[in-house]
């Protein structure tokens, strides 16, 4: 184990964590505001990747793929929330079963539309190649992911912490009933948060398409990671999602590198430990 190994694995872990942040921050907010365990969240990631892929094929523009993929899936999310999930407010189990129903439908639709072959999303030449610093090689694309996730994280934090809408969301996370009582339109907030969550997950899917690829089964493969992030970080907490994503990214990378056969175990065992010590997650409130 050279120093180089540790540095490059740390880098890989952090960049994977950055991608997970995009996926999990939305899940955490949705969960915080609506108490919905959205099992279709991984599907947003996958569908975002596929839509992005189609856009790149047609137009060749990566930026357009990011925007189009994220917006299209945000609309899907809004539709799901308004037309279906809203009818089941407060029914935890019903909502879970419904989101898994959607996840199965999305999975099959994706297979129908894009087929079963794995694809890699072509990234712009400016983001290809590696950056060499002091003999260490860092893939540019992964750097891009980290910068983008950091920027989005900062924007989200500013929006949540400093704006009126952010205050409304935080109020809805803390106590939806009271928030409603003081005149906040919680249903509208819920819809907005759901759209935002789907938007971020799909954005993650397009970006992830550049290094994870886009393939059938990715939805259910990535979903547990998002859940572990939320569980570790605490539900409805943005700082929790940030710390959780980086932690999970690092654990996953070192786990896979050091103990390939037990990779998932090295990811989930620390989660279990955190749960045993702090049942509401690192940043969750009791």
């Amino acid at each position: 184990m050279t120093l180089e190994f540790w540095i490059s694995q740390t880098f890989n872990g952090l960049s994977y964590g950055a991608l997970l942040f995009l996926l999990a921050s939305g899940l955490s907010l949705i969960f915080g505001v609506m108490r919905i365990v959205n099992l279709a969240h991984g599907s947003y990631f996958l569908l975002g990747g596929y839509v992005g892929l189609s856009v790149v094929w047609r137009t060749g523009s990566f930026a357009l793929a990011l925007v189009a993929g994220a917006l299209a899936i945000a609309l899907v999310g809004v539709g799901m929330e308004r037309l279906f999930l809203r009818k089941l407010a407060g029914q935890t189990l019903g909502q879970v079963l419904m989101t898994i129903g959607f996840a199965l439908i999305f999975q099959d639709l994706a297979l129908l539309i894009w087929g079963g072959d794995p694809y890699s999303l072509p990234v712009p030449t400016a983001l290809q190649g590696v950056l060499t610093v002091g003999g260490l090689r860092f893939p540019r694309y992964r750097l891009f992911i980290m910068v983008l996730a950091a920027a989005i994280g900062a924007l989200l934090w500013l929006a949540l912490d400093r704006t009126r809408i952010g205050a409304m969301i935080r109020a809805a996370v803390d106590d939806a009933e009271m928030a409603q009582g003081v005149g906040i339109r919680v249903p509208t907030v819920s819809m907005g948060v759901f759209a935002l969550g789907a938007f971020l997950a799909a954005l993650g899917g397009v970006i992830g398409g550049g290094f994870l690829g886009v393939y059938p089964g990715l939805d259910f493969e990535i979903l547990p990671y998002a859940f572990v992030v939320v569980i570790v970080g605490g539900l409805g907490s943005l700082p929790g999602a940030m710390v959780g994503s980086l932690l999970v990214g690092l654990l996953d990378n070192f786990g896979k590198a050091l103990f390939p056969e037990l990779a998932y175990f090295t990811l989930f065992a620390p989660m279990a430990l955190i749960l045993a010590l702090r049942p509401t997650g690192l940043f969750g409130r009791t």
Partner: protein
Amino acid sequence: MKTHRGILAGGAAVAVAAAIAPALSAYPLTLLTQAAIVAVLAMSLDVLLGYTGLPSLGHAAYFGVAAYAVGILATDYQRGFVTCLVAGLLLATLTAAVFGLLAIRASGTYFLMITLALGMVVWGLAFRWVSMTKGDNGIAGVPRPEVGLPWSLGAPLPFFYFALAATLLAWALLGLLVRSPFGMSLMGIRESESRMRALGYNVWLHKYVAFVISGAFAGFSGVFWAYYNGFVSPVDVQLVTSVETLLMVALGGPGTLAGPALGAAAIVFLKNFVSVYTKRWLLILGAVYIGVILFAPRGVLGAFRRDPR
């Protein structure tokens, strides 16, 4: 009233299945066997979901570890039925005992997520621990058990009766459990945890014991599943299997035992029939999930109208 209806409906279904089985060809008989085995899994989850009010999203874990125990012991070590059964039950119980320690601390939605994540631990091991589980390829060639009966369980009909007997045994035991004072206290906890605590019940311990028992019965189902299928793979422990079990319970009516068992049979038949006619069965299954929740009568999900706090 309700429980008697459940026993009548379940008993009638078992009697009809047992009576018509000799006249059936191999394929429907296979489905019936499958339904009988999966019914045990659904009933085991019902103890948690319907009677205790704990929606577990990782129930395939206990089912799966037992199936893997049988798969590994019966092929690599060529152990007999009793060894495999005991090992499967022990491993499932042990897994539930460990997971329960972590999961029972939480409630409501958080419980859902923790059991989901714990279920994924088992899936991850099944998928990645290739030297033990053969990974994605799965363990093939699990032989049908030799139990010293005059009929070979390799044939579909005797195996069906064997599985049906196991299902009846599990049904009877679980029925005794939920009607016992312990089962009554579980229902009390489902209705109002704080009230039960105020009455001096050890709520945590009740939930924990229910969790472990439920895991043990899921393992019981897993043992028979491995023998039935002859093949154990990560599919048996994946999230979709756990969710499917939830659907069976929700469809049949939580808190009735016989309901989830019939729900299990309905889903098994639906899945198999639909996949005969179309490749798009996932699409249809997804629509069934949504349809059941949107249009099912209040009774089906009635027990879970309230958000468990």
